[in-house]
């Protein structure tokens, strides 16, 4: 099973954000989606998990057409999908442990002991063992992102969607988060979609890299193929030289 986007279109008023995006993320693979600010990367991620409904096209996750699911079926699907938010989106009024336990409480039959054990193991996986009693306000930006990651993976989902997991972090913390994403893929076998502006991160975590521009996937290939790409827009993005894409941007 995988994630498939077929001709996905989404507009807000007159502004078309996605104009027929098609992309497949194969099982066990991590695809990094890069693109300029405002290109619709986060919108794309939100359509995958049903937070936004596309105006046209199909989103298929784990063999189910997301747009056709009823509410209960959508929530059942979401238990198999973890979502890491750009600014972590931790619940301020809850401790770290309570945040991580939120998804687990939706799993029928799970006891409090099992939840506590899973919370601890998830926090250990992101190197935040013992941080359970703290509140989000007491954490640094990097720690908050790691708690967001722990919350997303606590239910041991088959898919994890990362919305700019390293934006605003220093290079060392960025590398730590990237390693965590790789570790999750290796240890839990998750299929991942990573939205990022950071090309170094994309090279590190992506089996494939897709570039979103003008509402469509402009380019998709392995990190090596991206490095060799001749498309002026991809080159401009890779090299950080807008003059290479004059007339397109």
């Amino acid at each position, binding site marked *: 099973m995988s994630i498939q986007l077929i001709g996905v279109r989404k507009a807000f008023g007159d502004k078309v954000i996605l104009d027929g995006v098609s992309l497949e993320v194969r099982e066990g693979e991590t695809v990094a989606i890069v693109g300029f600010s405002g290109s619709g990367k986060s919108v794309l991620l*939100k359509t995958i*998990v*049903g*937070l936004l409904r596309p105006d046209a096209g199909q989103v298929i996750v784990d063999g189910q057409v997301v747009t056709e699911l009823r*509410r209960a079926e959508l*929530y*059942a699907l*979401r*238990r198999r*999908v*973890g*979502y890491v*938010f*750009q*600014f972590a*989106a*931790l*619940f*301020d009024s809850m401790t770290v442990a309570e945040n991580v336990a*939120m*998804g687990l409480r*939706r799993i029928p039959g799970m006891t409090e002991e099992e939840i506590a054990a899973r919370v601890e193991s998830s926090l250990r996986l992101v190197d935040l063992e013992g941080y359970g009693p703290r509140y989000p306000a007491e954490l640094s930006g990097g720690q908050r992102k790691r708690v967001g990651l722990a*919350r*997303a993976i606590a239910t041991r989902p088959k898919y994890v969607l990362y919305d700019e997991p390293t934006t605003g972090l220093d290079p060392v913390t960025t590398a730590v988060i990237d390693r965590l994403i790789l570790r999750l893929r290796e240890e839990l076998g998750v299929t991942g979609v990573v939205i990022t502006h950071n090309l170094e991160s994309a090279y590190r975590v992506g089996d494939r890299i897709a570039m979103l521009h003008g509402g469509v996937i402009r380019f998709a290939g392995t990190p090596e193929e991206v490095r060799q790409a001749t498309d002026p827009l991809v080159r401009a993005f890779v090299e950080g030289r807008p003059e290479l894409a004059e007339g397109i941007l």
Partner: protein
Amino acid sequence: MLRRMRDGWTAPLAWVGRSAIGTAAGFGRFGTFAAGVLRAVPDVATWGRLMVQQMARLGVDSLPIALFIAAFTGIVLALQASYTFTGAVPLYFVGTLVGKTMLLELGPVLTGLALAGRVGANIAAELGTMKVTEQIDALETLAYDPLAYLVVPRVLAGVLMFPIVVAFADATGIVGGWITALNMLDMSTPEFVRGLRLFFDPFDVRYSLIKAASFGLTVTAVGCFFGLTASGGAEGVGRATTRAVVASSMTILVLDAFWAVALL
């Protein structure tokens, strides 16, 4: 020139039209929201365990401000009644006026308006902040229905707790009036109680509590609606909070008139 004059005449009409469409759209969105809340009520597994916490926050924590307002309202009512009645109406009617006015009008309405500010603003600001920081989306991705998790327990707690707070406020106002009558109006307790019982009807208590429950529904539902539809960062949350307080205060006054027409 002619075009400018025509635009000058039509601009107010256009504004009225846009406002009417905006208001109708707002009512439509609220209707959709209300239908969603009703649909979420059977999801007891999600909201059940949050009820006690919300009842404490909305009800118990609101008692000090409600009782403070009620006590001073009772004092002022007794003094103004005595001032009005002097020489013309027997003084024991002070008890009648304090009791009737607290139960029928000032107990529920002043408490409702105070809680529109305290509870309504609190709910709108809390949910609005959650909305603009993507915490509502986070709930969705964790397979929680935000309406079942956030709205239903607040609305039910409001409907259940507002009547309790208002009952205490009614009693406090009457006690405030009684103490004032004893100490400042040279009345005795039997005189005050005689006036209090003179036109007392148990229906007055039911009327007070029905109004309070409807105010609880209004304040919490409106606060949740404006919170969940907030957008645009801190400024948007501030705007949503103000709108919630204004809308619920106005609705309380409309409901107050409605219950008077419907039940009295």
